[in-house]
């Protein structure tokens, strides 16, 4: 479970995130949408414990979290449009590095499991620089779930992916969500968000302006709501 209480972030005197509070329960798939500069990436960094909030608190599975909560980071897996992978190392070497750092038990077996899960078991010894963008993103998913985190954060995971790669990514995300894993995604792609998520949050100018579950919402209706929200904030 993920809880944000009056979370606030200012950078250089400018308030990027206004006080935000929400609760994400176990197994929920939440997507945050918003225009450029809405503060989505800052919120992502705060919740994934990459940066410290100016004010407010974050609780992960009941424990108060800060950037110093190194043990709580084991509960988190992060997938970004950057892969966090070393181009010159093979898939096996990249996963070994992260696995050792996360103290994954029976690492070799686990690496084979996650590579099979993302369909890259045949490319285990190939350097990452020889992978296509879609394969790199799948390996990035393998890296993020290697230590079996209970919460997955995704920041613009569709960036640079073709339709086929998007389909693969979606099926991987759906099966991860079925495992009762909490998923928190940030994207511009509201169609994918509606298909995958249980809940949508719209962020504009650092404020939550929409927070509702996705049941019964059609893509066309949400598009109209979204444009109204974003348009009214801009004007």
């Amino acid at each position, binding site marked *: 479970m993920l809880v944000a209480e009056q979370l606030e972030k200012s950078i250089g005197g400018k308030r990027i995130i206004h006080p935000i509070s929400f609760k994400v329960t176990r197994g929920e798939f939440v997507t945050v949408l918003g225009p450029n500069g809405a503060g989505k990436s800052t919120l992502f960094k705060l919740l994934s414990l990459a940066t410290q909030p100016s004010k407010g608190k974050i609780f992960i599975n009941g424990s108060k979290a800060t950037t*110093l909560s190194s043990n709580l980071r084991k509960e*988190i897996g*992060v997938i970004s449009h950057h892969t966090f*992978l070393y181009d010159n*190392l093979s898939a096996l070497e990249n996963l070994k590095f992260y696995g050792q*750092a*996360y103290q994954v038990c029976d690492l070799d077996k686990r690496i084979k499991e996650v590579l099979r899960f993302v369909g890259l078991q045949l490319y285990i010894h190939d350097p990452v620089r020889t992978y296509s963008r879609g394969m790199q993103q799948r390996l990035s998913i393998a890296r993020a779930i290697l230590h079996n985190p209970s919460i997955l954060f995704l920041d613009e995971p569709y960036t640079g992916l073709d339709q086929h790669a998007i389909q693969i990514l979606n099926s991987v995300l759906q099966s991860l969500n079925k495992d009762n894993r909490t998923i928190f995604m940030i994207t511009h792609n509201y169609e994918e968000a509606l298909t995958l998520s249980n809940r949508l949050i719209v962020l504009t100018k650092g404020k939550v302006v929409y927070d509702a579950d996705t049941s019964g919402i059609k893509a066309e209706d949400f598009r109209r709501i979204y444009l109204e929200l974003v348009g009214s904030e801009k004007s």
Partner: protein
Amino acid sequence: MINALKAVIWKDIIMEYKTKQMTSSMLVFSGLVIVIFGFAFELSIEVLHKVLPGMIWVAMIFSSILGLNRSFMLEKNNDCMQGMLLLPCDRTIIFLGKFCANFLFVLLTQIIIVPGFFVFFDYRFQGGLGLLVLILLVGTIGFIAIGTFLAALASNSRMSDMLLPIILFPITVPLIIAGVQSTSLIFQGQGFDAISQWFYLMLVFDVIFLVIPYMLFDYVMEV
């Protein structure tokens, strides 16, 4: 913690083994220093006694800068630094891991380059070899410790290649002076008593250059 430290060191070593980017550039640069000095001066044994310690330190310092710059540049590709910051360990572990790996690479270069100086200049070293090794080790530890910290700081800048030497050299001047002076005394055949003052000064700087980054690394990464 220890697992994360080992993982960071192992990752840097295996990357260097595959790319050889740091060690090759450091070795080529040091080799050039040897050749250029060799052709630039007519060096008699007496002159060599006085200038060789300086040459060794010049080669060590400038080649280390090349390596240090590369060290954090590799982490910028695919935002790997962010991946490291998310590891379940104290962030100072990243500093310690990077420091150990950089120290290892510079040490490897020195093992090749220092004898290279003696061979190229046909110089018969008659001082205490143990003392020379000790001074080079102590000097390298301090230089690489603060260099690793400042390389992390400079890596967020667009001009990191230029920024690192500009901020690193003034800070390390006392360490370099102590290193050159004590090496010079060793070349003259002096024992530990003669170099002890310089040696203790270097030790103090080593402690400072290890403790300050250890305390500030988390803050630097946050900025």
